[in-house]
Structure formats: structure tokens, C-alpha cells
């Protein structure tokens, strides 16, 4: 199939459908509205599929719970304030071990914040979000094509681990148009959903979808089971792009839209004789800590500069991975402001002790 221009949000929606998503439950919020709008147009064309505009994000995520518990491929999408409302449902889904895909097209916060691109939901996405000990698989595309590929794979990941997967984009990824080619991503070998509530048909004991363990010992055991699963994810699912790292004296760490802007800055620095590289986490959880750690051990690397559209969230994971081996600096814009390549270049020079 030839490449076509697709808007990020619509491309994510179509990718989900191509991955077999037949049920979408959502609620309007900018800048992700094209996802529910696209689903409302497409789902009625698909046999047995449904689109429901829920009364709230809270209801939408609980519809996801019900649909996912019944074994279907189910998705919801929202943007930051709406994702906060969904946190209740997300922790229940994680607790009940249901597979689903949740899209967050992040905008500025806190509170109502703004509607322009931001990355200030990193903590929420990677450190829990809702109550209890749990993890989401968090995927951060930095192009529309990558958003398409990751969305398709997200459904397989969710089914493999019986865990919610979050696609974390930002207003830019959602709103921009880029060339996209829908290719079939390799399908994983997935177990049958024998746990789903589809009616016993008189042939098996009843299935129960549940996250309640009133006996503390049983609840702890459940948590330990979850963390064994998370350890598997950490072992198998870390994704990272290393860019221009050979001989880099300064290493940027950035994801999503910000990573693209950093690449422009790296080109400018290169023209001025400064070798800069980029570590771009594609999975925000599990985090590519080992890649960061390995870079910190290289003699040529003098410092790290984390760039985010936030006041500094992912930088904490960079510091944990670097573990004091090298200085870790931060540059960020927030509230919907986007860093410019020029500002990133200036910051890098400052970190390296002035212009060469």
C-alpha cells in the first residue's frame, strides 16, 4: 500500500480498527476529538462493532472494563483532564488484569490547563496514576507512522500480558498529518481468552472478572503475581531509539514530539562541531534504563540533557539510571509551549560550558 497523508488521531483510530478493535468508548475533549469522531464514522461499517459516546470519561473507562472483560478488543481515548477521570477505571482494569488500549493525547495542565501539546502526564502514566501497585505499558510514538505501528502492536501486548497499554502522544502527534503506510505488524502468539465473561454455555464454571481480594494474604499474592508479570514486560518490551550516539559528548534524552525537535538541535550542534546524541525512549514504561546507564559509562559522554514539555518528570528516571555517574541537566517548556531547536542548542552549549 502506498503512503497516504493521515492526521495522527485518525491514523491511531484506523490502526486500532486494523488491529481488530471493535469497541470504542469515549467522551469529547480537545485535542483528541478526531479519534472518537473517526470511530463513530467507522464502527457502524463493521459487523458486530460498536461506538458509544459515554456520559463521562468515568463511564467510558468502565465500559472498556465491561467490554474487555467480555474478551473483546476495546479502546478508549482522551486527553489529560479526561485521563485523570479515567484513573479509577484504569486501576480496576489493571487489578482485574484486563487487556485494553488507552490513548492519551496529552495537553497542558494541571487542572483544566490548556489544549496545546504537553508531556506533563509522564508521572501519571508511568508511576501509577490510580491507586495501588500496578503498571501500564506506556508507548510514546514520535511520528504518525510510529503511532500507527505501536497502536496495532499495543492490542497484542495488552492481550499477551492481560494488562492495559497506554499510547501516550501529545497534541502535536494527534493533530499533525504525516505520510503513513499501514503495514501488518507481526502478530504475537496469543493465548485464548478463557477467562472472559461470555456466558458459561453450561460448559464451564462461571468466570468472574474482579479486583477485590478481601483477604490480605490473597491480595498480597495477587500483587506479587502482577509484579512477576511486570518483570516479564521489563525483560521483553523495552524499546528505545539511539540516535547519533557515536562519540557524543552530550546525550539528550527526549521522547515523542520533543525527540523530533532535539534531532533538529543535534543537526545544528553538529554543524558547529559539537557531537550530540539522543536516547529516545519509545516505551516510557518499562523504561530503557540500561541504555541510559550504558551511555553514562562511556568516557566520551560528558553530560546528559533531558528535554521535555514539562517541568521535569522523565528526568527523574534518567537520574535514577545515570545514578550519579554523570551530570544530568534538564530543559523544558510546559503548559503547551514547545521548545525550539535554537533554545535546545543554547542549553546544550551552556551544559558543555559555553560555546566552542
Amino acid at each position, binding site marked *: 500500500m502506498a*503512503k*497516504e*497523508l493521515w492526521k495522527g488521531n485518525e491514523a491511531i483510530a484506523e490502526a486500532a480498527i486494523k488491529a481488530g478493535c471493535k469497541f470504542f468508548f469515549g467522551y469529547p475533549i*480537545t*485535542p483528541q476529538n478526531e479519534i472518537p469522531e473517526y470511530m463513530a464514522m467507522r464502527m457502524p461499517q463493521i459487523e458486530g462493532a460498536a461506538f458509544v459516546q459515554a456520559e463521562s470519561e468515568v463511564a467510558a473507562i468502565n465500559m472498556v472494563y465491561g467490554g474487555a472483560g467480555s474478551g473483546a478488543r476495546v479502546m478508549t481515548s482522551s486527553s489529560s483532564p479526561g485521563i485523570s477521570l479515567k484513573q479509577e477505571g484504569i486501576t480496576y482494569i489493571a487489578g482485574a488484569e484486563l487487556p485494553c488500549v488507552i490513548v492519551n493525547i496529552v495537553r497542558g495542565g494541571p487542572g483544566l490547563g490548556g*489544549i*496545546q501539546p504537553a508531556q506533563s502526564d509522564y508521572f501519571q502514566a508511568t508511576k501509577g496514576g490510580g491507586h495501588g501497585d500496578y503498571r501500564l505499558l506506556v508507548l510514546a510514538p514520535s511520528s504518525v507512522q510510529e503511532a500507527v505501528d505501536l497502536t496495532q502492536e499495543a492490542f497484542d501486548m495488552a492481550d499477551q500480558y492481560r494488562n492495559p497499554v497506554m499510547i501516550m502522544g501529545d*497534541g*502535536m502527534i494527534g*493533530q*499533525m*498529518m*504525516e*505520510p503513513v503506510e499501514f503495514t501488518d505488524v507481526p502478530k504475537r502468539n496469543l493465548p485464548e481468552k478463557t477467562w472472559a465473561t461470555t456466558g458459561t454455555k453450561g460448559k464451564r464454571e462461571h468466570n468472574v472478572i474482579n479486583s477485590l481480594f478481601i483477604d490480605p494474604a490473597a491480595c498480597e499474592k495477587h500483587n506479587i503475581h502482577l509484579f512477576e508479570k511486570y518483570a516479564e514486560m521489563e525483560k521483553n518490551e523495552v524499546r528505545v531509539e539511539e540516535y547519533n550516539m557515536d562519540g557524543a559528548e552530550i546525550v539528550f534524552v527526549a521522547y515523542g*514530539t520533543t525527540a*523530533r*525537535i532535539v*534531532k*533538529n538541535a543535534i*543537526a545544528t550542534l553538529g554543524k558547529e562541531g559539537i557531537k550530540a546524541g539522543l536516547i529516545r525512549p519509545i516505551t516510557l514504561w518499562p523504561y530503557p534504563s540500561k541504555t541510559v546507564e550504558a551511555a553514562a559509562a562511556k568516557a566520551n559522554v560528558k553530560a546528559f540533557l533531558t528535554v521535555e514539555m514539562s517541568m521535569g518528570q522523565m528526568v527523574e528516571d534518567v537520574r535514577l539510571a545515570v545514578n550519579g555517574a554523570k551530570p544530568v541537566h534538564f530543559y523544558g517548556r510546559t503548559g503547551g509551549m*514547545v521548545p*525550539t*531547536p*535554537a533554545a535546545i542548542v543554547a542549553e546544550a552549549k551552556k551544559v558543555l560550558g559555553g560555546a566552542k
Partner: protein
Amino acid sequence: MTHEIVMAGFGGQGVMAIGKIIAEAGLKEGKNVSWLPSYGPEMRGGTASCNVIVSADPVGSPIVTGATEAIVLNRPSLDKFEKDVVPGGMLFINSSLIDKKSTRDDIKVYYVPANDIANELGNGKIANMVMLGAYIAATNAVSEDTIMEIVTEMFQGKKASVIPLNKEALAKGAECVK
């Protein structure tokens, strides 16, 4: 050559549409492209703008901070984006609606009476295509033939009757920069 283009105007003037046409044409010619709209309240009737990048190299940031070219269809857009054009760049001004002259002397400025031309062609809505014709003729960012291929794909069936009008608008726009 990388074209980093800003185009802006009132909502409804069709700036998003010509941005998409340029991006589609670039894609058709095998180039790397991106199209990024402004979004939010300003797109409901206020000034709308989009950033388009057409390049032989992979597109880094989709945000245009230094525009190689700007196409402005109304006065607020001129005021906002004139300064963003890089030295040696080009500025296309819809002189039908903008009576102000550019103050820049380090860029090439084209004045295109797009609405007047569109009205002469019998359809005021096609002013955006006149601007596009001027832009293509001056920059060769994509070829006019590719633009017409895209336009032909856009208007199929009953709507195909507007294709010649679009072609004429592109041609009239092109004359303005010769």
C-alpha cells in the same frame, strides 16, 4: 531544499486546504512532508494557520520556527508571521485584503490580489488557489502538474466540474509572480 512554510488567514479562507494540497503533492513526488494545523478556539472563525514542511530529508520538528516561505491571506496573519520568514525567504501577501506593505527588505515579497482574481473568475472562494498558484510558480516546491493531480483526486464525480476553475486560479496566481 527544505521548504518550511507557514500559511495563515481567516478560518474559512482555505489555508488549511492549500497546506494539505502542498503536503499531498510533496508526498506524491516522493518527498518527506508534514502538515501541522493550529488548533483550538482560533480555528472557529479567528485566524487559522498551518505549518507545512516539504523536504528531501526526514522531517524533524513539524513546527516551523523559521519559515522559508509564508503565505498570508489576511492582515492579522501578516502582522503575526512576517517576522518569522528567514532572511532570503519569500512572503506572499493577499493584497486584495491586506493594504499594508511588508517592512522587510531582506526577503522577497510578492503581492497577489487573490480575492480580486477569484471574483473575476466568478468564485471568491478560490482565492486560496490563486495564492497557491503564485507560491508554486515562485518556489517550485512541488510541481503544478502534481498539484493538479491532487485537485483532480479531490473533486470526483459531480464535483469534477470545478477542476478547470482550480486550474485557472493556479494559472492566474502564477502570472502574478512572473
